[in-house]
């Protein structure tokens, strides 16, 4: 039995043939950045780095939402968890991220009510069942997640649930690409653009970026042949010196994206200038809750004042997120910073580049 729309793209024969095509075509030494953390994971889990020729280097970009969350936001999450009569709800990834003095996981061990959920609807359900508690969802993620959080706020309003709050640390991808290109020392020849962010925003959302920088760009799915196909298309563009904005994931991504989801996201959130770990403040790259919904805004409700937190000393997460360094070039990697005792978020999140290197890379 096969899983439709998945197993077809895992056929080893097809992958092998695409690799052969890449081998035949690739002459120049090129550096491609996969922007999305799930691509990073899939590349490692499938052993794609070992399959492609040495001419092609794959860099992992700022596409793991937990990894790019600024230190002061992590500290804010931990601060919120200390409020009385509060239940914190979060997706699993945030639990272990070290803040300046603690982590959500350590706070839970101390007795704070912190629950891992699978969907924002679980948080609403918890709020409904615990009317005397304040239920706060820690909103981390890109355009894929933001509409689901927006939908939860709209539902809470319709259901007249007044003890559900969201702390929004959402970020948007295209603006980060602009910022990335302006980073000093950056050396990228092409981008593997995220799959499910693009499902929502559509390939059209990258046009301003493409028109400005004329960088080879291909939107990719997550199965091995999807990623290999995107690498092939990028190599072709670079070898032929004909940069294009292409879509290798047409079964899920259209030019306009999911217009309903975009509308819901824009109804609830508006653009804001926010800081990304390792990149700094990127104008208009964050999503804050509109005033109209301020009753649901945990940041406002609990007067969380963003502290001026410092990123951990010696941690190269910032440079790793922008492709300037690989984890093995970080002085802390594997020595002080390990998944057991992570220093920076790239080692914590299972999609973080350092964690992926640690787990799957054998050092050669």
């Amino acid at each position: 039995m096969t899983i439709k729309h998945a197993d077809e793209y895992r056929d080893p024969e097809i992958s092998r043939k695409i690799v052969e095509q890449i081998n035949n075509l690739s002459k120049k030494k090129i550096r491609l950045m996969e922007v999305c953390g799930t691509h990073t994971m899939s590349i490692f889990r499938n052993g794609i780095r070992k399959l492609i020729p040495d001419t092609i280097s794959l860099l992992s970009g700022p596409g793991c939402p937990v990894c790019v969350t600024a230190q002061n936001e992590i500290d804010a999450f931990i601060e919120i968890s200390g409020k009385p009569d509060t239940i914190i709800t979060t997706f699993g990834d945030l639990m272990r991220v070290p803040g300046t003095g603690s982590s959500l996981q350590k706070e839970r061990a101390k007795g704070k009510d912190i629950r891992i959920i699978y969907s924002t609807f679980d948080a609403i359900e918890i709020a409904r069942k615990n009317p005397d508690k304040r239920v706060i969802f820690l909103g981390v993620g890109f355009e894929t997640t933001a509409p689901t959080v927006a939908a939860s706020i709209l539902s809470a309003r319709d259901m007249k649930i007044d003890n559900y709050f969201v702390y929004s640390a959402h970020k948007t991808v295209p603006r980060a690409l602009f910022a990335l290109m302006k980073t000093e020392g950056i050396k990228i020849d092409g981008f593997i653009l995220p799959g499910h962010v693009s499902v929502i925003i559509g390939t059209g959302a990258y046009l301003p970026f493409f028109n400005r920088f004329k960088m080879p760009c291909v939107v990719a799915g997550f199965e091995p042949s999807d990623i290999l196909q995107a690498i092939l298309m990028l190599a072709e563009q670079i070898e032929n010196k004909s940069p294009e904005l292409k879509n290798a994931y047409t079964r899920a991504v259209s030019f306009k994206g999911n217009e309903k989801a975009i509308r819901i996201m824009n109804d609830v959130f508006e653009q804001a200038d926010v800081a990304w770990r390792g990149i700094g403040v990127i104008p208009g790259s964050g999503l804050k809750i509109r005033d109209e919904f301020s009753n649901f805004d945990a940041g406002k409700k609990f007067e969380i004042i963003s502290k001026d937190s410092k990123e951990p000393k010696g941690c190269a997460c910032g440079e790793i997120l922008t492709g300037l360094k690989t984890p093995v070039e970080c002085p802390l990697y594997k020595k002080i910073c390990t998944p057991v005792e992570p220093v920076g978020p790239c080692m914590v999140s299972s999609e973080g580049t350092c964690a992926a290197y640690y787990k799957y890379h054998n050092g050669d």
Partner: protein
Amino acid sequence: MCLAIPSKIVKIENNMGIIDVDGVQRQASLLLLEDPKVGEYVIVHAGFAIKKIDEEAAMETLKVLREALAFAEKSEPAG
């Protein structure tokens, strides 16, 4: 994390769907979709269906991939 596997909608009730991957069923909100129908494959993220799979585009992609395979096999001995 993004979920690569699409799920099939098997039941719809008030904007909530029961979706199925290979016999595993769970609920997903259909609030972010226009006009979802039973039998359609969807991409799911954090408990929400976020996109229907475009069956025609999927067929086209597979055709291209398989043609490349067939062509490569014809033009060289299998190794």
